[in-house]
């Protein structure tokens, strides 16, 4: 079996008539962090959301091409989006904890899946919150509303919530762009912790962030994948002129 956990081949996505992704070929090895960068409107979010089929929610979207997850076609007619999203979790730009307690937020997925064992749930809560590097801050008020937390803490609780259902892949769409610098760097530290155990794909408009945390970086422009390589190479020695222009701040 190949090391590739997720592959996309010739992926096109249309919003109505408008082609937002124009034939993306991009594969991901298991584990590690891949950053998706590019000017806004170039299709990063769109691409990310095809990977756990969140675009299914939008009317008039047409998708062609193939995406496979562990060798299976994500868009096969009998593919189960609910199962897919358990394996491929997602964290959004705006922290979106449910208006419940911290504890309930973290175990919500498991509880709905039918897990009742209190000890097991407690253990998962602690483990997930520790992994998300927010345990020490919230452990004394697990049963208070998650909405009372700061934005950065909320975002880490959202990461814990995803970790609790033990996905293989975690998608993050600009998870720090609504946060202050301190919270952002805490999130970055969290992701660096997780990179050994999860396949992480993060959209960011912050180039420094990509260079700090990503093993690999993919540069998108106008719905196309321009270049993907080790982060070092993208930033120090890009193969394409467009990448170089973008990195050096000449546009976008």
């Amino acid at each position: 079996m190949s090391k590739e956990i997720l592959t996309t081949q010739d992926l096109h996505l249309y919003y109505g008539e408008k082609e937002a992704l124009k034939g993306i070929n991009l594969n991901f090895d298991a584990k590690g962090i891949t950053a998706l960068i590019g000017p806004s409107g170039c299709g990063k979010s769109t691409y990310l959301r095809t990977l756990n089929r969140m675009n299914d929610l939008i009317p008039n979207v047409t998708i062609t091409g193939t995406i496979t997850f562990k060798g299976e076609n994500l868009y096969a007619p009998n593919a189960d989006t609910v199962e897919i999203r358990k394996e491929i979790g997602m964290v959004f730009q705006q922290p979106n904890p449910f208006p419940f307690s911290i504890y309930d937020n973290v175990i919500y997925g498991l509880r709905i899946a039918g897990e009742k064992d209190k000890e097991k749930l407690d253990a998962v809560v602690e483990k997930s919150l520790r992994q998300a590097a927010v345990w020490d801050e919230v452990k004394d008020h697990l049963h208070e509303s998650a909405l009372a937390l700061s934005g950065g803490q909320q975002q880490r609780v959202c990461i814990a919530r995803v970790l609790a259902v033990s996905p293989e892949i975690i998608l993050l769409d600009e998870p720090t762009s609504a946060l202050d610098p301190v919270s952002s760097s805490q999130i970055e530290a969290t992701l660096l912790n997780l990179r050994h155990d999860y396949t992480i794909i993060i959209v960011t408009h912050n180039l420094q962030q990509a260079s700090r945390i990503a093993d690999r970086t993919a540069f998108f422009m106008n719905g196309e994948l321009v270049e993907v390589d080790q982060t070092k190479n993208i930033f120090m020695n890009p193969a394409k002129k467009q990448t170089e222009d973008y990195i050096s701040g000449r546009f976008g």
Partner: protein
Amino acid sequence: MNSKRQNKIAIGALYGIAGLVVLILLALLGYILASGVPQLSWHFLTAPAKAFLKGGGVGVQLFNSFYLLILAMAISFPIALGAAIYLYEYARDNWVTTTIRTAIEILSSLPSVVVGLFGFLFFVVKLRLGFSILSGAFALTFFNLPLLTRSIEDSLRTINLEQREGGLALGLSRWETVTRVILPAAVPSILTGVILSAGRVFGEAAALIYTAGQSAPALNFADWNPFNISSPLNPMRPAETLAVHIWKINSEGIMPDAKAISSGSSAVLIIAILLFNFTARYVGKRLYKRLTSA
């Protein structure tokens, strides 16, 4: 300078208007309570009404009001909830949903006396339900359904897209997302809508005059078999409510203490509605807690 002054004047005017509204409300409440509360007694609240003698009470009317309210809510709430969930969470915008929405819009702006007349013609006459609790409850459902549906839909709308995406992205199905994330999050707001509509239903008279009827036969509160004619639970008996009673006393009351009974009934009506608000708020909080930590 000039704009600063304009601003000050505008703010002053707004405060004035707001103050005026509060003042009017307080004056109304004060007047009703001041003239009504002295009439209240245990006897007044429990005794049956008297047609042309002094000293009647509103016990039966009070019971009828609550019974009708509960029945009407029991019928309209599940329908409104289902309709709102369908319209907001599932239905795509097309001519079917547009038609439903327009229908709801029109229904909600019908004067309640028209709803009452429709109820009379359809439930009382056509379906031969007679002047009965059941006719009244159906009429109230018609009256209540559109507003309740709209208010629940508005409650669902206040839960933003991120919450829905959060649920789905966790691997919850659409239905689980609606029932386990969206609804609990919307409970306080849904409950507020339910309370408001309960208050309106409780105080409604016009829709009931020709459906639940204007007579309140004495009830035997020891008999809870809904099939007996004097049982309070019998849904086929005519049932004048408190609001209808007030209307009736004021238009054709011939008992010597009509004025006092009308004031007393108004006070009871107002107090009941205020009580609704407070208890429901409390219940809402409790319910929210239970739903979110079950």
